[in-house]
């Protein structure tokens, strides 16, 4: 029974979540000098993100948004770009059917 947000609201929400994710990664010192301005679709792995840094990002995002990624989302693919992380966070926070 998921309420589909109006397009404008959805767009605003997305921008908001994405910017919170970006601010978080800046605070966590991930890819300093790059993450501040990088395109949301850019591949963070190609930009130098390392596997251990990814774990730090997973923990930080879970704490920031008070979500818990199920194991099937804890992959390199989920943390490939700001856009994909944002999608995953929105999927978990938006009227989710998880307990």
């Amino acid at each position, binding site marked *: 029974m998921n309420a589909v947000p109006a397009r404008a609201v959805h767009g605003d929400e997305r921008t908001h979540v994405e910017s919170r994710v970006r601010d978080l990664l800046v605070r966590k010192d991930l890819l300093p000098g790059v993450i501040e301005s990088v395109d949301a679709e850019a591949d963070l792995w190609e930009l130098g993100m390392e596997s251990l840094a990814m774990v*730090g990002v997973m923990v930080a995002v879970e704490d920031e948004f008070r979500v818990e990624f199920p194991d*099937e989302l804890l992959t390199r693919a989920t943390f490939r770009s700001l856009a994909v992380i944002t999608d995953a966070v929105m999927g978990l926070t938006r009227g989710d059917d998880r307990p």
Partner: protein
Amino acid sequence: MTGDPQRTCRELAGGVLAEHASTVDRDARFPKEALSALRAHGLLAAAAPVERGGLGADVPALAGMAAALARGCGATAMIWAMHQVQLACLLVGEGAPELREAVTMVVRDQLLIASATSEAGIGGALRTSSCAVERDGSGARLDKRATTVSYGVEADALLVSARRGPDSPPSDQVAVLADSARTRLEVLGGWNPLGMRGTCSPALRVSAEFEEWRILPVPFGDLVARVMTPLSHVLWAGVWYGLASEAADRAVRYARARGESAGPPSSSLAEMRWRLAGLEAQLDAAARDTQDVMTGAAEPTVAFTLRVNALKLATSQVAVDVALAAMRACGMAGYSEDGPYSVARILRDLLSAPLMINNERLVAISSQLALVARDR
């Protein structure tokens, strides 16, 4: 080849592998007789699908083959296992037609592929490179100082990791299938280790020239997560499990030969069995998980990575414990380098297990991953 590959491995282990194992070990030389026999039976192409000319063995079958080979010669089994990992990496993704043709040739001609992923100044950290692919009008090249390259000098080709280009960060890597014919190898150090001496794994400087299509299509990080790390851990664990099983069997044969007059059998016999039973179950489960990830039926998640790391940590330690227990049970006959109850070479070979991707590093990584681990 006809028949069951695992059975063929058992027969070869008891034959040609065992026959040359002690001179291979003594002289720290490449086990050429064993590798010729594996080639003759099509076993170098075990991991390749049948439609590409291989045996189509799945991961659990490959682990069983690794264990079977290890009973004859640990170094031969380890070379075979490492080669299967390189071959499996080559079979991932749709590369250029030229690459596909080159891989078909690897399978058809049973070419031996080594791996150069370690690097001076970085060590064994797989996911970081310092050297880079450089390009000019005539093609691409790379120059790498690798700290450990097993059987690199004997290989027909090498899978080499490097930064994608001179401007790429250390973690933006590619894997290159470098043809030995266009690669210069300079041996940088000696090779006189405690065990696994036949793997011939000195430091090498690798200077390769290659065509652009020899760069594998899959980003190296994805290849590592999906194939290279899990399959390495499973097949290495298979080798270590096979070595430990052989040690346990020798201890049993020793106890039986002594007969009842020597009193009740050593309690080490029971200890070895429960330790091996635990390893076998863990190996089997991890092999099936890895099969699912390699076919794309499952994703290489944090929990999966933790499970294959756990397999590596547990097997590399417990297999050593089993070999030590076997040596206690066999006494001086086990401590001897010669004779039917010798456990000496097996123990020396197994002592390399905690160092192949150092357990301390693996524990540090796994502790980080554990922060976000979820139950299944």
